[in-house]
């Protein structure tokens, strides 16, 4: 049973945050491999500290890519032009291992027979969670939804030169007060923005600019807006010069909550970025979100968490659990049964359903990398297959 009256805060970060930078480099590498060879197997992990970016990649692919160059392009596109860290000068250490090519032939999941789909088993043990609720149009919890919106806007003001002195790194946070399980008011808004060392402004102009160009436009279209009692914190710890990897280090997969539901529901411990679609710990999370979102969209519950448990060597999840936190119109077991009737949770089935091998080609090499910021779920800007509510009618 969900608590009725409570406070919940979630945070998001901008694309220039070092952890997110690592996620994006990892996923850009995945994109690049899949773009050239949809059947690439690749695991790319990344760490960044001061002037050095470390990339460890293991892969089996017919594609050949210049990984540091991919990373430099990401850094360049993020707008890092600081003396301490920039696309041209930063040192990139890559550790590359080529995996032996698998002995079995690649079959396109789209052309697989039922038998073949069944034969592709999970290669990793994984507990993945999908969540959806009717707190926002994207069926996402409101705190993370608002945080993402603020973070996006913060980045946009920099690129659109509304606040030209901002640096790429930034963090946002929104606290929402809940009454009777529904968002009641905005309790607090925090923005930590970094500024270019060469063009530092004071706290007051920053406060005004962020209010005018970030907070106001973001909440203009929201039903729930900050009120007079809402705490608004702008850089509560003071001004930050440059920020980014020259200030704090980053690591792939350290922002799992930002990637998912802002800790409002459970999420898997394993990272989503830097893995090709054959990794069930990545794509399973998408499938679970797909199911949960359709449950809520079908009006079967106000909030729904789907838990899939995979075991190595078995294609279907060994457990499918649905929790509607007491908001369900029908019993959770009934929802579970309907989900199992209409969703294919086998690894190959998920790849086929979401066309995951070919998305990088369709998106011109910018699919997984886009997922790496502002959430891998609840995205309304890309047209993600797992955000579609096409199965809602079937579940009703």
């Amino acid at each position, binding site marked *: 049973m969900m608590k009725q009256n409570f406070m919940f805060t979630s945070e998001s970060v901008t694309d220039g945050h070092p952890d997110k930078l690592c996620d994006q480099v990892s996923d850009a590498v995945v994109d690049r491999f899949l773009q*050239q060879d949809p059947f690439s197997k690749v695991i790319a992990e990344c760490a960044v500290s001061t002037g050095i970016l470390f990339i460890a990649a293991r892969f089996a692919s017919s594609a050949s890519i210049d990984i540091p160059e991919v990373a430099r392009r990401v850094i360049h596109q993020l707008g890092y032009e600081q003396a301490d860290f920039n696309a041209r*000068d930063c*040192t*990139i250490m890559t*550790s590359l291992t080529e995996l032996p090519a698998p002995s079995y032939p690649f079959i396109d999941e789209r052309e697989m027979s039922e038998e073949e789909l069944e034969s592709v088993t999970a290669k*990793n043990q994984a507990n993945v969670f999908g969540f959806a609720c009717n707190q926002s149009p994207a069926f996402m919890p409101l705190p993370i939804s608002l945080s993402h919106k603020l973070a996006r806007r913060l980045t946009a003001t920099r690129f659109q030169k509304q606040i030209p002195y901002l640096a790429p790194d930034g963090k946002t946070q929104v606290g929402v007060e809940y009454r009777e399980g529904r968002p009641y008011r905005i309790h607090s808004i925090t923005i930590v923005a970094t500024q270019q060392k060469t063009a530092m402004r004071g706290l007051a102009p920053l406060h005004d600019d962020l209010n005018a160009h970030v907070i106001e436009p973001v909440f203009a279209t929201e039903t729930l807006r900050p009120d007079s009692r809402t705490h608004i914190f702008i850089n509560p710890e003071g001004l930050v010069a440059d920020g980014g990897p020259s200030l704090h280090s980053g690591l792939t997969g350290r922002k799992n909550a930002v990637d998912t539901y802002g800790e409002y529901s459970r999420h898997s411990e394993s990272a989503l970025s830097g893995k090709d679609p054959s990794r069930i710990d990545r794509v399973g999370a998408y499938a679970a979100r797909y199911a949960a979102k359709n449950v809520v969209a079908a009006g079967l519950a106000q909030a729904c968490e789907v838990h899939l448990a995979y075991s190595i060597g078995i294609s279907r999840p060994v457990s499918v659990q649905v929790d509607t936190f007491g908001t369900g119109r029908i019993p959770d077991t009934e929802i579970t049964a309907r989900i199992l009737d209409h969703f294919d949770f086998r690894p190959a089935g998920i790849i086929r359903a979401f066309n995951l091998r070919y998305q990088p080609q369709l998106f011109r*090499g910018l699919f997984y990398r886009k997922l790496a910021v502002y959430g891998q779920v609840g995205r309304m800007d890309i047209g993600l297959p797992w955000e579609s509510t096409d199965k809602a009618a079937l579940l009703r």
Partner: protein
Amino acid sequence: MSLLFDQMQRPSFFGTGATEAEPPEPVRIVHAAVEGRARLKIRGLYRSESVRRKLESALPRHDAIRHASANVLTGRVLIVFDPARDLEEIKTWLEQLLLDAGHEIIPENPIDDSGSLRSSQRPGSPVISSDPNSVLPQDRKNWHALPGDTVVAALETSMEFGLSQASVERKLGHFGVNSLPETPPRSGLSIFLGQFKSLPVALLGVSAVLSAATGGLVDAAVILGVVLINAGTGYVAESQSERTINALGHVAEQNAMVIRDARLLEVPAKSLVPGDILVLTPGARVAADGRVLESRNLMVDESMLTGESLPVAKRVSPLDQPDVSLADRLNMVYMGTVVTGGSGLSVVVSTGRYTEIGTIQSLVGETRPPETPMQRQLAILGNQMVLLSLSICGAMFLIGLVRGHAWLQMLKTSISLAVAAVPEGLPTVATTTLALGIRTMNRHKVLVRRLDAVETLGAVQVICLDKTGTLTLNRMSVLALHSGGRRITVDSDVFYDAGVRIDPYQSDELLRLLHVAVLCNEVELNGEKGNYLLKGSATEGALMHLALAAGVSVEALRQRYPREQVEYRTETRSYMSTTHSAQGDGKLVAVKGNPVEVLEMCGWWLKDGARLPLTQAERTVILMENDRMAAEALRVLGFAYVEPKQADQSSADELIWLGMTGMADPLRQGMKELIALFHQAGIDTVMITGDQSGTAYAIGKELGLSGGSELDILDSTRLDQLDAEVLAGLAQKVNIFSRVSPANKLQIVQALQRGGKIAAMTGDGINDGPALKAADIGVAMGGTGTEVARSVADVILEDDNLRTMIVAVSEGRTIYNNIRKSIHFLTATNLSEIMLMLGSVGTGLGTPLTTSHLLWINLVTDIFPGLALAVEPPEPDVLQQPPRDPGEPIVGPADFKRYGLESLTMAAGSMGGYGYAMARYGGGQKASTIAFMTLTMGQLLHAYSCRSDHIGIFSHETLRSNRYLDLASGGTALLQWATVLVPGVRSLLGNTPIGPLDVAAIGAGSVLPFFLNEATKDAAFKDKRRKELLSLPPAPREYG
């Protein structure tokens, strides 16, 4: 008398006082920590021979000063005085002396200084001497503060015409040749006398005196004979080595470009004189100190003088302050530094030993190679052995006395034992082996330029390889193109599209690409049409070659579009663009460079002759193609052009994309196998390249640089900005450094060394000097390498073949091992003598060996097998072993233990023989003879045991035979048997004839220890190896 001369030779004691070298007070105490010794800085002494002479004659007149010596190069005096006297008192006296004698010792006016160095050779110079009060600087250090024309005038020369031949000859007479003083080679006598200057030999001398004093004149004579024979062997070996060693480090005669008599001449660097106008071009070594008169982006690497690793930009304008350090004299160039870029003119201001480098060299004084670490270790080892044998012999003497032997007899025996046990041959063996090794390497086309490089070669743990020129042929050629959305391959100058041969003239964009490649290109075409000689960079040469192959008439094209302006690629912009004027009023801008950057500037592209807007989709395709080409180890260049309508309109957005070329520099034959050989020998390989890391990865994979594990690439354009500790940490596991510039090689080698690695580095460019110097082994290529690289390298591969490097490593390791083998033999056999004597005296069996026996052993059985072991051929698995730990002593405690055990078996064998004879003959000469024969035969056999510490007669592997050892031991054995078979020799050594049974006993006593030692060899080695392996971390394992 000319001021010119004084500027050259005169110190600055009468100068402005602004220079840092001169103390404000006339006498300053520099160093007085040692009682009775003091170093004083004397104003005016610096570079003044006359002051030196006068000081040296005046100083000893003080009753407290016992000795004084003055140095004109430091401006200091070292005095040795009565410690009871006060130094301050002497100082005051000296100050007074200087004051009183002022004009006599330190002339106020340099023109009066008739006692100055070499002044007598110099006739008056009419031009300048007419005005002694001219404003010319009186300090040679102040050239940099003067305007260029003043300097030129002062040196009686002219920038346009240079010196005349006549004045060059005259000046050459005044100032001498422009060369640095060399240390004369050691004379034969000094080498011979040097043989007596060691502790072991001193011990022998003492023994001789003792023997003579105690009536053993014969013994004394024999001991002296030992000393002389030893010195003779040492002399022969060392004087040969000396020749080899002196030949090290010699660089061929240098030439310099000068302007003389208004003509550009190439003259020997030796003939340069002050006033010569020196022409500076890239790659040239500056041949004398000079003031820069003209600089076109002149960049000079002054690292050898100032330690600054980055090249310094030179300028012409005078400096405001005279008082600046060498590194900041931006309008001066110094002898020995290297022009790395640009060009310029300078006027020579000082030559020879008066140049800055000459000063430094004179200060250092010694140009002889210093003792190598191994030689130092051996000296210590020798001394330790002396102490050890002395104490054991002392013990034996005491035991003998207690046992009731006659003290005189005991003393003589003990002395002879000490003499026999002292390894006086050690240093000779080491020097000889090193020198022989150098000669062997020369035969393999490996020139070694430093003695210690030989032993360091054997310890090399990581080798850094330049990709270009070392691993590859440095011959670029275009292999692929991407133009108009088509992939075009080039094979033997023929263009193919999807396997179908195409004519580049059929494709507008391809033809334009070739045109741009020709226009945006600085290659010079020499020679006849159809048979051009291309002169320029490898990349541009490849492009030009491609255009010529396609049939582009380069000269006509270049005439139609004369070049107006060139913008080179810079640190921040990785493309080059040229502006050309076209027919009528038009212009053409041609751009080539990094495809990503060039593409970013393009708004259009050409396809099938039509200009189309460049959409995001096409950009993506082009960038992917770039990646693909780069990943195929091609160096990719993008091309674009624009024909602006108005002359001033050349907006970058307007550029039209033409396509990309991919070129490669083919790998040399057999490099992959060579890399595998290095890995097998436990040497890590690191490739250094300026390529993108995609290219680098492809090559690294092809070469197997990581030896099968993951390939680590460090991709950085700014290694120098990286924290040194971080880089040191990273460098330990990096296989490839990509996108680095040659200047970064220094950081790489230092990072490796910081991690405790012994690093070798290859290089042949003019920027490679500092890195080659910093590396433990700097390797230069003999043929393709620049003179600079060759002159600082430790090792030169004359045939430009990296394969010879593995030979050098093998030789280096073998030499080290061979020296160990000699030590092994000398130590073990000497210990066996001591043990035998100590054992039998201790057990009351008397003294088995007579003094003559001991001296014979020392003379005959020790020396020749020891020397022969030093020329052992390489062991078969020398390149399968990991490099030795450089911190490990040449002979460690474990080795000593093993040597001790081996000598114990030999001593036991001889004791057995002696015991048998005692039982059979009841002691006496007969028993001594048998003990003597058993021991020496055992020792000769042991020489074979010393050939390898893990391969023996019971091993599967066999060693290559060593002819010298066979000869040495065979000859020695013959002599040995002569001592019992030839009556005359027999009586000299006090031996007796022996029977067949005795021979059998001798055989058993000498062969059994040999077998025992051979049988336990493998186990001992394995035990040692196991302990080493246990200390290693477990091999990394791969998870999920």
